[in-house]
C-alpha cells in the first residue's frame, strides 16, 4: 500500500504523518495517533459520532481522506481545552447531565462548538439544526440541547463584560 506524507495542524500543533492513500482521517486519529475522543460509530457518514472540526467547519472524519487534510487545521475533542481543564461546552454537558453512555458526546460537542463560534446566540431551532446530523441513543436530545444553550449563555457573558 502506498503511503503519503501529510502535514497538518492538529489541536494547534504541527503534525506530520505518513498515511496510507485512501485511509480516513478517523483511522489516522484513532489507529495512528491514539486520539480516542473521536468515536467511530457507522463508518459511513450517518451517525455523526466521528465529527471533527476542519478549518472551523464540522466534518465527518470517517468520510474525510487523511491525505486531503494537508495544510488544514483539525480540532478534535482533545484540543478543546488544556489537559485537566474543561471547555464551557464540556462543563455544561457535565452539569446538565447531557451524556449517558457518552458515545455521541464528542461529536455533539464539536458540532455545537462550530455553531457557537459562528453564532454565539443561537435559538433552540438553530441548535437542533446544528446537531441534527448526530445520533444519540440515550439522552432523548433534550438535555443536549439545553446544555448547548447554557454553554452559549456562559460564553457570551465575558464578552459582554469586556464591551
Amino acid at each position, binding site marked *: 500500500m502506498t503511503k503519503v506524507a501529510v502535514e497538518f495542524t492538529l489541536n494547534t500543533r504541527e503534525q506530520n504523518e505518513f498515511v496510507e492513500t485512501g485511509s480516513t482521517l478517523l483511522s489516522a486519529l484513532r489507529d495512528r495517533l491514539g486520539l480516542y475522543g473521536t468515536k467511530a460509530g457507522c463508518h459511513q457518514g*450517518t451517525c455523526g459520532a466521528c465529527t471533527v472540526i476542519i478549518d472551523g467547519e464540522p466534518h465527518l472524519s470517517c468520510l474525510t481522506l487523511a491525505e486531503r487534510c494537508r495544510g488544514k487545521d483539525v480540532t478534535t475533542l482533545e484540543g478543546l481545552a488544556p489537559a485537566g481543564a474543561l471547555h464551557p461546552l464540556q462543563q455544561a454537558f457535565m452539569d446538565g447531565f447531557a451524556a449517558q453512555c457518552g458515545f455521541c458526546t464528542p461529536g455533539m460537542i464539536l458540532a455545537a462548538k462550530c455553531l457557537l463560534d459562528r453564532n454565539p446566540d443561537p435559538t433552540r431551532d438553530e441548535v*437542533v439544526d446544528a446537531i441534527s446530523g448526530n445520533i444519540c441513543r440515550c439522552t432523548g436530545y433534550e438535555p443536549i440541547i439545553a446544555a448547548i444553550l447554557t454553554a452559549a449563555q456562559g460564553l457570551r457573558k465575558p464578552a459582554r463584560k469586556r464591551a
Partner: protein
Amino acid sequence: MTRKRGRGMAAVNYPTGMNLGGDPSQALIHATTTGSFVVTLSSVDLGQGLKTVMAQICAETLGVPTDNIIIDTADTDTGPHCMGTFASRGTHRIGNAIIMAAKEARAVMLEVAAEELEVDSNDLTTDGAGTIHVKGSPQKSISIFNVALAAHFKHGKSISGRGIFLQPRSYPEPETGKMTPATCYAHACTVAEVEVDTETGEVAVLSLKSAYEVGRALNPRMVEQQIIGGAWMGISHALYETTEPYYPDRAHGPVDFNQYLMPGPGDLPEFANVVIERPAADGPFGAKGVGEMTANSPIPAIANAIFDAVGVRVDSLPITPEKVLRGIRALNA
C-alpha cells in the same frame, strides 16, 4: 390537508428485577491502604449511571465521601457473580448487595478506629466527610486515611465486606399460576398528545406528560435522564423503529442509519415529568428500578392518542404513516 389532534393515556406497573432461577447479585468491598474503598462488581455501566449510584449507596452506608469509592466492574470472569444489568434490577439488586458488604466493612473500620482512639466502637460515628469521631465530641477523631493505614500496617486487619442480594426462585402454584416473580413494582402514567395528518398518515407527538413512582430517586437528575431518554425511545418504538417492517416477510429490513428510522432532535415533543417517592421496604434506601419502564407507557399512550384523533386502532408497532392511512381508508370504506 387536515390535521387532527388527539390525547391518550396509559399506565404501567413495572416489576423490579426478574426471577427465572433465582436472581442474585454480589458485591465485594475492600479498603486500600489510603482509605479508598474498592467495590468489585460484575455489573455493567452502559450509560445508565450504575457506577455513580453504586458509589452513592456505598459511601452513604460506609459513612465516607463518595470520592473515596472506586467502582470496579472490570471482569465477569473473575468478579463476584451478577445476573446482569437488565430488568431494571441494577439499583435494587446490586445496591442491596453493596449495602450488606459496606455494613460489614464499616464494622471493621470502626473496630480499628476504636482501637486507635482507645474507645468503644459503639461510641463512634462517621461524619461522611472523611473522619471518624466519638459521638458528641468531634475533636476526638481519626481520619479514614489513618484508619486504613493502621489497619494494614499495625493491626493486620482487612477492612472489607461481602454482600449478596438474592431474590429466591419462585415456583408458580400449579392451580392458579400465581407466583412472586419480582420484588417491588414501580409505577408510571403517561398522557400523550398527538397531531395526525390525515392526508399523509404522519403522526407528530406534541407532548408527553408523565408521573413516575420510583420508590426513592437516589440520584434525581439521573432519574430524570432515564425518564426523558426513555420517553424518546418510546416515541421511537411507537412511530419509527423496526428491523422488519413487513414481518414475517423479511423484505425491506433496514441495514443502516439511513434506513433505520429514529426521531431526531427536531422531532421532540414538550416533556413534563413528575417523580413521586414512596420508598420500597426492600429497596436500597427505598429505591425501585426506573429503567426500562420509561419507554413503556409512552407507546400505548401514543397509540391511544392516535385512536382519539382519527379513530384508527393500530395494534402493531411501529405505527407508520402507511398503517394510519390504511386505517383511515378502512374507516371511510
